[in-house]
């Protein structure tokens, strides 16, 4: 590649590229999938969060693979190297996730989800408990609002301005392009979403999650995607069913609030978790638990998987 030296310069100690890559046909689009570990080891699914991509697991996934697992991660539609699609929705994301599992194994398997990936898994496991054995949520459980779902609450979250703003965005969305910049500029921009992650790590992520165009580096993520939900979906629909969660769960929480986090503490969510849930709180840790504390997180996960 013409810019190999720029990529080499931003290599990150401890990060390990996947052992295998493939593309998976999923509902008329193709998704980029990555695997760490022996191809004949027991499979384990690893799901990233909103605005992220699978290679953000380059530090964490190899630690799980080295414990004897075939770790399978993938880029969600519109993210990383997966296809940009015409439409995006929660259900479409879940269907894509099931296509990745189908293309990996027909046996039930363990799954780890970070952030939105955890919530998608929690919902999919509630719908299809026979496909999963164990579930790890890395700050991946949605918040159960303390407010009842009243018209007043809807008014706060779906104001007239928010609705008009979303519709206005749709009118010009096809003309949206990501802003180009130098590699280190993209890393500094991403620090707004990832304030606790090192500049060196974010530079490494740029070499994977962005591409170099003639006018500079651009994140690969679909420019028509917007963060944050729009519509009737409320995460408490998932949380309300957590007391009956059908498989063993390890729920890992940080303690430091971050912009991309669910903004929920272990204590707040504990009443909705089955008594068998293993709850772990990482002190002085933010939303990206597995990136800030890869060794500690992997040790917890491996112990839980083997229990």
């Amino acid at each position, binding site marked *: 590649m013409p810019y190999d030296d720029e990529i080499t310069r931003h290599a990150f100690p401890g990060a390990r590229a996947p052992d295998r890559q493939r593309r998976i046909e999923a509902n008329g689009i193709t998704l980029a999938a990555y695997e760490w570990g022996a191809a004949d080891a027991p499979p384990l699914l690893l799901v990233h969060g909103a605005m992220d991509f699978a290679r953000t697991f380059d530090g964490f996934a190899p630690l799980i693979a080295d414990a004897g697992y075939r770790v399978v991660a993938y880029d969600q539609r519109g993210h990383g190297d997966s296809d940009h699609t*015409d439409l995006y929705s929660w259900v479409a994301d*879940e269907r894509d996730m099931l296509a990745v599992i189908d293309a990996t194994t027909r046996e039930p398997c363990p799954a780890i989800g970070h952030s939105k990936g955890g919530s998608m898994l929690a919902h999919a496991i509630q*719908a299809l408990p026979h496909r999963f054995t164990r579930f790890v949520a890395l700050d991946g459980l949605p918040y159960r609002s303390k407010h009842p779902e009243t018209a007043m609450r809807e008014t706060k979250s779906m104001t*007239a301005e928010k609705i008009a703003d979303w519709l206005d965005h749709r009118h010009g969305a096809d003309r949206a392009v990501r802003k180009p910049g130098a590699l280190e500029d993209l890393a500094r921009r991403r620090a707004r979403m990832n304030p606790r992650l090192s500049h060196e790590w974010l530079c490494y992520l740029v070499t994977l999650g962005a591409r170099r165009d003639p006018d500079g580096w651009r994140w690969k993520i679909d420019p028509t995607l917007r963060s944050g939900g729009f519509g009737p979906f409320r995460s408490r629909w998932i949380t309300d069913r957590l007391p009956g969660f059908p498989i063993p769960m390890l729920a890992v929480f940080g303690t430091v609030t971050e912009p991309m986090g669910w903004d929920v503490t272990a204590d707040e969510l504990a009443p909705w978790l089955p008594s068998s849930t293993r709850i772990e709180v990482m002190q002085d840790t933010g939303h990206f638990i597995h990136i800030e504390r890869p060794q500690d997180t992997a040790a917890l996960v491996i112990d839980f998987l083997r229990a």
Partner: protein
Amino acid sequence: MIEYLQHNRIRLALHMLKPGPGRALLLLHGLGERAPRRLPADCAGWPGAVHALDFTGHGESQIPRGGGYTCELLLADADIALARLGEATVCGRGLGGYIALLLAGARPQAVHGAILRDGPGLSGGGTHTKHPYIPVVDTSRVGAPDPFALADLATDARPPSYAAHYAMLADMRSPLPRPVTLCAREQPEWLVAVTAALGLEWTAFDDALQAYAHAPNGQPS
């Protein structure tokens, strides 16, 4: 005559069924349907132009790759058509009726009344209290209507409070005294909530059409 409008990566078909002066009537079809090819007899009395939109994945509109339908996407489809027409009375069948309500709440200055009629997809997937469900879609069938649309828009959650919120936005911000008119007999929970929030009474379609046709903006009909 078909005019094509761009909504993000999807090309939408807007059919003009009748030309005419003044405010347009915009027809929104039900789930799995398409825009009527000719002016429906019960709309013939409308004094202005009559247009009908094919939603994404329906009729002559483009079929997206890989699904991903939501009612909010269809709301944005309808908003693209509304922007083209400037101002319109919006009449929806089934799913199109739910979208007409959302549009009336989202664009209360441009929607000169929303008429909600019976038709396919009026209920959706009911309220959010159902068991979580991820529909499996038969992708071997090609062409409109898109099987992803049929699967996801027959199972989407329509919480009564969410629908009532759009109804209240329309009621508070529309210059019309009655921005939403109920012509449907089927009463899914979201529509019960809207009916209660606005104190709606069932109205014959022809009466609804006449009321909006002859009500100048801001004046009681």
